[in-house]
């Protein structure tokens, strides 16, 4: 068939003719952006969101203050004379802030950190692939895969020891996420299928697989109550230990330390190992990397697998840390993986940036949630959508980096022409 003729040769004869590549853009961020651009991006997004709020007849300042308090960030501004208990003893020591979760700000802050934990990881999932020149928008599917495996392992193997059970669930969930990501990497490496398309498809396959597993009559549906589309509860021994707050009211769990450790691992692997060097080399210029003897295909697979393992870990931590079960609705409504894209892009794909951006979005999500936001000031249903808008605007402004380039160049041109006539 004549239609199956070879595709036209790629248009690489003049790379400068096209827009800056991902690598070029990232180099630009490193040199010109730094902390200022992402900060301004976020500020602009919140300003635009404020305009919408004002346009619909609410006071944006009061709304943002309510969201700020809903996120528990005012906790940091309440100094006093409090104490924390020293574990395994009756002693306590003086502490600056009130850590009692009966105190609303402290409780809200635990919820913010609870949301920040998976956001850090899904943000890293996008970032790591980005550093290899891949756009992993499959964080959501990898997150769901991790959560499914997490809830499966957590609700089986009841007789295992506490530590072993948690460790097994986390490791297997990360591997599942890694597998889900590696499919896209493998297809990219072998047949050149675009990772954006394949990861979108994998997201939705995971979504419907989850709906099938936990739906009524599904293979992983609750064994005790056949009428609810929810999984079995995970065993008590598979709960992640709580570190702050009352476990009955969604306490902050120790998984946040794993997320912070993941940030550190991300930095170390990328900047201090051969693997990271190769991944970044492929990300900067895959042709040059190939010429330098690096297997580009292998790095695609490895980078996607590592990305997926971050997202899979996020899914497992949410299950073992505070959800303890997974329902069809959880699978269908969750968008932690998608928010990871905004986290990664706002965080400029660096460890520190991702950590800060995850905290920002975690606070935004918690502050606008029905549980935390004062409904007298702003209806939480509206606020949830406001949070979505702000995320979208962040993405739009991040994408509009060329505006900054224009301004930058215009300024330089102005300076040059200013000198030239002399």
């Amino acid at each position: 068939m004549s239609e199956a003729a070879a595709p036209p040769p790629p248009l690489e004869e003049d790379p400068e003719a096209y827009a800056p590549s991902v690598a070029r853009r990232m180099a630009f961020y490193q040199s010109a952006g730094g902390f200022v651009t992402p900060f301004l991006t976020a500020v602009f997004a919140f300003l635009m969101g404020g305009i919408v709020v004002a346009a619909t007849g609410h006071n944006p300042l009061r709304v943002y203050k309510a969201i700020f308090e809903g996120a528990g960030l005012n906790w940091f501004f309440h100094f006093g004379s409090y104490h924390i208990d020293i574990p395994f003893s009756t002693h306590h020591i003086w502490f600056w802030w009130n850590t009692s979760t009966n105190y609303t700000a402290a409780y809200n802050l635990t919820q913010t950190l609870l949301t920040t934990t998976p956001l850090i990881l899904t943000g890293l999932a996008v970032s790591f692939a980005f550093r290899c020149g891949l756009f992993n928008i499959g964080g959501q599917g990898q997150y769901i895969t991790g959560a499914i495996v997490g809830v499966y392992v957590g609700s089986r193997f009841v007789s295992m020891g506490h530590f072993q059970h948690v460790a097994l669930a986390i490791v297997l969930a990360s591997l599942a996420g890694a597998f889900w990501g590696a499919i896209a990497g493998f297809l990219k490496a072998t047949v050149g299928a675009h990772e954006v398309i394949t990861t979108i498809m994998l997201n939705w396959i995971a979504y419907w697989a989850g709906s099938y597993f936990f739906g009524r009559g599904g293979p992983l549906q609750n064994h005790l109550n056949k009428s609810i589309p929810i999984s079995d509860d995970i065993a008590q021994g598979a709960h992640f230990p709580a570190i702050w707050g009352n476990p009955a009211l969604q306490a902050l769990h120790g998984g946040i330390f794993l997320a912070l450790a993941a940030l550190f691992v991300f930095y170390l692997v990328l900047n201090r190992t051969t693997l990271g060097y190769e991944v970044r080399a492929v990300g900067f210029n895959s042709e040059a990397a190939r010429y330098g003897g690096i297997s580009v295909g292998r790095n695609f697979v490895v980078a996607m697998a590592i990305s997926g393992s971050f997202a899979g870990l996020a899914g497992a931590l949410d299950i073992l840390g505070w959800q303890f079960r997974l329902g069809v609705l959880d699978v269908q409504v969750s968008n932690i993986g998608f928010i990871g894209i905004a986290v990664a892009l706002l965080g400029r794909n660096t460890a520190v940036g991702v950590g800060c951006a995850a905290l920002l979005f975690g606070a935004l999500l918690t502050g606008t949630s029905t549980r935390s936001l004062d409904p007298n000031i702003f209806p939480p249903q509206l606020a949830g959508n406001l949070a979505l808008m702000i995320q979208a605007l962040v993405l739009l402004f991040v994408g509009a980096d060329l505006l900054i380039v224009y301004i930058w160049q215009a300024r330089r041109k102005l300076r040059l022409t200013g000198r030239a006539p002399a």
Partner: protein
Amino acid sequence: MSTIDFAGRLRSRWPLETVVARGGVVIGLFAFIVALPPFRADAQWVPVLVGLVAVGAGIWVLTRGLRRPGWTAIGFGIVGIGLGILVTRASHGNLNQVVVWSALFSATLVWATPLTFAAIGGMFSERSGVVNIGLEGMMLSGAFFATLGADKFGSWEMGVLCAGIAGGCFALVHAFMAIHLRADQIVSGTAINFLAVGVTGYFFIDIYGENGTPGNLPRIPEVSLGFLGRVFGHLNLMIWVSFALLILAHITLFRTPIGLRIRSVGEHPRAADTVGISVYGTRYAAVVLSGVLAALGGAYLSIGYLGSFSENMTAGRGFIALAAVIFGNWRPFGAFAAALLFGGSTALSFRLAQPWGNASVLFQALPYVLTLIAVAGVIGRSVPPASAGRPYVKQ
């Protein structure tokens, strides 16, 4: 003389191998169909035999060196055998309940129509070289603003108009980001999706609140053509529009200078620029058109089919449309066939809910699995336009 010429042209367009391969596909489908009402073959060997004929045809085509058509026929044969055997093992009562051809077919058309609109839109955008991940968001905005327009102005025509304008505006944002600012088109498309969910959700709650959209919304009317039978006699106007759009899109894209410009801009923008085609202008037009069409698909969903709007109601249909574009190999009729297939899998999943229970939701995943297989190139690669996703810098 001319008749001989005609026969020769026919032979060159339809060589024996192609005919056999396409016949194999049809026979493979038939292996499944013989087991269904009204044929309802009870013995398992019937679908197996018919399916094996299809596989044989596929193998023969394969030996003649045509990989893609050959594997397609083999695939259809095997799937036909599998489904056929599955059906022969089902009970007759269930079969009669699920396989009501007229109902199944009209449900397929209902679910395929929004996909068709969005997929043809997406195809124009991608053909011009701009990847449009934001189809989902544009569709959702169309669904909401159609509801709003129909409610506020009291007529469905205004609803459709509002939908088109809203979808066009979202697309314009995407176009500006992708073309002038040369932003990453995936980032910008993802942003559009988030933005649409946020904006429609915000205004939906702000305007309609807890009660939801009013029950007496003006709806897009049905076209009653009784003489066309049960399936085609009572179709929504938008379904007929989608048929017309399909033909129009095919003619525009492959038979007019406009289509040639769109395709050249998507394949080799530098060459197009050199011969005086405005790359930016063409791309803007194509992307905005894609937004308008996706929004019309959304409008069909809200004020055409359901008669109401709910938050995030498109629920991934924009992504299925994107899959249809790819599965249909960036061609209008291909995209339409994919939309029918995907719409059919949705319809089947709803109809199977009764006998199969939960397992029927797996049919909802079928579009994504098929597209994954298609881009993986197991049965012949889908090749996108050469410059899709690459911004162009004027010189």
